[in-house]
């Protein structure tokens, strides 16, 4: 495993993104994410939150700039090495993106299967995870028969099942009731406490107050502002303490 400089997990340097020949949807992004930190990414609709998350979970290459993930240059990295990098990233998609022909159980088990885990080693972690998100009795249900909130919980369970080093979540509490939203945030915090860097994109300002010590990255028309100074003064000590 490559060692990131100064314990950084993600580093963006002057990154820009445009689709086709349109204007840039993200411009001049430069920041560093550290292990064990909890970030909220906020901004109005169309500010570029989802585009930034796509760069973070390696679904998109930037038009310019440099991205370093886990100490490796993600731009020039050979395509064959990307899957190994992606397995260290958990993603909660805004539209859930559950595999429609698989049950809730199989959807949650997917990251473990992809990484080559044996079937007998899947049962307990997947069952535990489904139990945690309150879907034990729905584990054999297909996504089409699940409610929006249930689908979201399956998507979250799938994102965290493989204990990723960084969790990227796009509006993860958008379709759940307030109690479940808090419960999910506690799950993210628990993961964060184990050293996972968490990046949650949301436009729910109430959510920001529910995670103490969280850092806020604000996107405005594709440009990043830094209201808490978190990006200029990364919480190295806090992150290292949490990892320890």
């Amino acid at each position, binding site marked *: 495993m490559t060692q990131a400089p100064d314990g950084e997990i993600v580093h963006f340097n002057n990154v820009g993104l445009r689709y086709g020949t349109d204007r840039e949807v993200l411009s001049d992004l430069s920041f560093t994410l550290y292990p064990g930190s909890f970030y909220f990414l906020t901004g109005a609709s169309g500010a570029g939150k989802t585009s930034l998350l796509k760069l973070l979970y390696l679904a998109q290459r930037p038009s310019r700039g440099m991205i370093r993930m886990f100490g490796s240059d993600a731009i020039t990295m050979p*395509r064959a090495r990307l*899957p190994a990098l*992606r397995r260290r990233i958990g*993603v909660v998609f805004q539209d859930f993106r559950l*595999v429609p022909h698989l049950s809730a159980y199989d959807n949650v088990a997917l990251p473990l*299967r992809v990484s*080559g885990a044996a079937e007998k080693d899947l049962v307990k972690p997947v069952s535990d995870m489904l139990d945690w998100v309150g879907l034990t009795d729905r584990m054999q249900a297909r996504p089409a028969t699940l409610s929006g909130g249930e689908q979201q919980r399956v998507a979250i369970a799938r994102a965290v099942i493989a204990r990723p080093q960084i969790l990227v979540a796009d509006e993860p509490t958008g379709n759940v009731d307030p109690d479940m939203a808090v419960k999910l945030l506690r799950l993210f915090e628990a993961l964060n406490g184990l050293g996972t860097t968490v990046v949650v994109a949301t436009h729910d300002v109430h959510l920001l107050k529910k995670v103490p010590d969280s850092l806020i990255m604000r996107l405005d028309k594709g440009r990043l502002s830094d209201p808490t100074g978190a990006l200029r003064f990364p919480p190295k000590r806090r992150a290292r303490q949490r990892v320890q």
Partner: protein
Amino acid sequence: MSAAESLASAPTRFIRAFSGKGEKDLVPQTRLSGPMPWVIAIMVALTVIALGAGLALRNTVVSAEAELKGGVTVQIVEPRGDKRDEQVQAALARLRTMPDIVTLRPVPDDEVDALIEPWLGTELDRGVASAVPVPALIDARFENAISEERIAGLQTALAKVAPSARVDAQSGWLEPVYDAIASLQLLAMALVLLLAFALAAAVLLAARNALGTNRETIEIVHLLGGTDTQIARVFQRSIGVDAATGGLVGLVLAIVVILFLGGRFSDLGAGLVNNGALDWLDWVLLALVPVAATLLAMLTARFTVLHALRKML
């Protein structure tokens, strides 16, 4: 892993690489619901029939060549009966002295009469018949195949004792037939290649279609860290099952057709045709066609999917 362990696990790794077992749930399996098994069944049936025809033609040629190999016919074209008999005896004596002679016999008159019967009939006036200068024939067989040079040498050697002798290689009479059969063999082989190409093209289209249908799922699997090879294995396994099933159906269909045609040809009672019967090795080759078709389909699917996936990030 030691070299010995690596070697021992190589078959397992090979089977896993091509079977896709373990990744079967990554994308939905189409199983046998689509037209692919039936397309492959038709392709395999036509391929087996074309290959069977090619092999039968080859057997015909090989068998005929074996029968006629080293065979030489010496004609004594002498209208005067007494002179003709003298030259026959002299030619026989000369041929007996040759070290590589295997069999030698003068063709009896009744056999010669039977040979020319289709042209001269059986009820001919004996006087007319005796006036027709029918050559005497000697059937000789040598150890090795007869070349043009050897024919010329025999002609020279016999000319000294039987000036009316004409020497012909028996296989030479069938050269035009051999040429025609060779052309048919080439045609059969070309058909086999064309059908293999058509099969690969059909699989390519099916794989592309399946990729398009499952694009969303493939993207998800990719983003969860699935590799191109994992996804390709799923498709090649799915198409492999289709190809194996279709291939088996096609093989059975083709065997029925071959046995039926074989029965019809054997009823003709023609020696040359009957010599074209398929031997056990030919049947093994025909049985390998669906295996080859399955491998070809799986490889085509694998490379098509891998090529398409390379365009994704």
